[in-house]
């Protein structure tokens, strides 16, 4: 873990760290825009992870500091990243061929909502005309695993972990692991299994902030 905190719950980097620690040696990993990109900051020892971005960059490394960037090289979030030895570039159709072909071991994405059935919603807000899909539907439908990182509740305090999504879904029944500021959860059909609670968070508090039944893992 990159930092410790006295504060209750996990911060953004800790949420990313917790999921990154699930990555297995040799996995090909796609990181979504926002908190998921923080996973590439996590030190996971000598495990060899290949980061893939939608724009066809296979084998990228850390974000480079200002002045050291290569302006021809960005990850899916537009950040100027580095390349690791053994990197390769393909075009967008080949990149999504890799995705649809099932070669991505895990995609980590942000979301507005996750359901007990493993559905998630991250492309369209309530009442919005259109939205922003990007590569999320391709990744969600085709990656071997879908992990989600999101704040446990909205700013109004409403649970983002729900019995069913209220927003239009990105894909159905695909999410297997969810990191929030309160802990690590796995959709189980009827609710969520608590795999781990963040420091200072009790089961009761997590349940109180979750609109679906929690089960001790």
């Amino acid at each position, binding site marked *: 873990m990159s930092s410790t905190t006295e504060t209750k719950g996990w911060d953004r980097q800790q949420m990313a760290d917790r999921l990154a620690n699930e990555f297995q040696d040799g996995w090909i990993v796609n990181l979504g825009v926002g908190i998921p990109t923080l996973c590439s900051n996590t030190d996971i020892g000598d495990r060899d992870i290949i980061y893939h971005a939608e724009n066809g960059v296979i084998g990228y490394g850390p974000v480079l500091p200002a002045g050291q960037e290569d*302006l021809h090289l960005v990850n899916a979030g537009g950040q100027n990243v580095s390349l690791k030895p053994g990197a390769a570039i393909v075009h*967008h159709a080949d990149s999504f061929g890799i995705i649809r072909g099932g070669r991505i071991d895990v995609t980590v994405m942000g979301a507005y909502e996750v359901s007990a059935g493993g559905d998630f919603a991250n492309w369209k807000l309530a009442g919005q005309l259109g939205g922003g899909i990007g590569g999320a539907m*391709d990744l969600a439908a085709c990656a071997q695993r879908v992990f989600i990182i999101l704040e446990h509740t909205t700013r109004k305090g409403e649970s983002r972990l729900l019995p069913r999504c209220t927003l239009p879904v990105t894909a159905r029944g695909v999410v297997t692991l969810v990191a929030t500021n309160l802990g690590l959860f796995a959709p189980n059909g009827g609710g969520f299994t608590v795999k781990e609670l963040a420091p200072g968070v009790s089961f009761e508090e997590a349940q109180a902030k979750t609109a679906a039944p929690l089960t001790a893992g």
Partner: protein
Amino acid sequence: MARNKVFGSFAEAVADIPDGATIAFGGFAGPGTPYNLTKALLEQGAKRLTCIANTTGGAHQPRMPDIGMLVENGQVAKVICAFTAATRPTDQLPFTPYYERGEVAAELVPQGTLAERLRAAGAGIPAFYTPTAVGTELAEGRETRIINGREYLLEYALPCDVAFIRAWRADTAGNLQFRLAQRNFCPLMATAAKLVVVEVEEEILPAGSLDPDHIHTPGIFVQRMVKIPPAPEGLWTVRRQERAR
């Protein structure tokens, strides 16, 4: 007699783009984006355009020439892209209010499906099946098919009249090389369009200068190329442009 594909200015290279054209714009998060050709099209003024791209642009400052500006300039009838709104509620794309007021139409397409529809158009494949978007609002009322026990959505090829792309190196035969993340949609759009116009970063080399094994877009797909002049006439990436000031 080999054709001359090298044009002297962006204005000349886009002069005859007609009203109503369907134009694909390369680029993803900066690299590969045809800023100079887009700027020339803003000045040229063609109207009722259908614009195909990953996004309409304009979510970040400073703005560079993008489809959002063509929309603001009254040149666009429809966009086909993977974002019609920003995913972060606090961002707003310049395009979005035009869409919400019904002044511009939009077709929202998952990014991989967009890439594959362009590739299909270029490869003479009129339609294909994909697992993407099955079970979502985007698949409602549309044709699906069960193949080997899994449900797939039918998608159609997306041909274009014109492609605007940006390359790193080129030769006079029209062969193109893209550097790193610059490649993205550019080679696909080059195959899908009848007229391919390229802005090129490096000097355009004599035919035969590029290794035939390392060409990303063969010259048979390319009709027009313009070397990007140094700033202030030529537009580079946002950051390069800033540096050039």
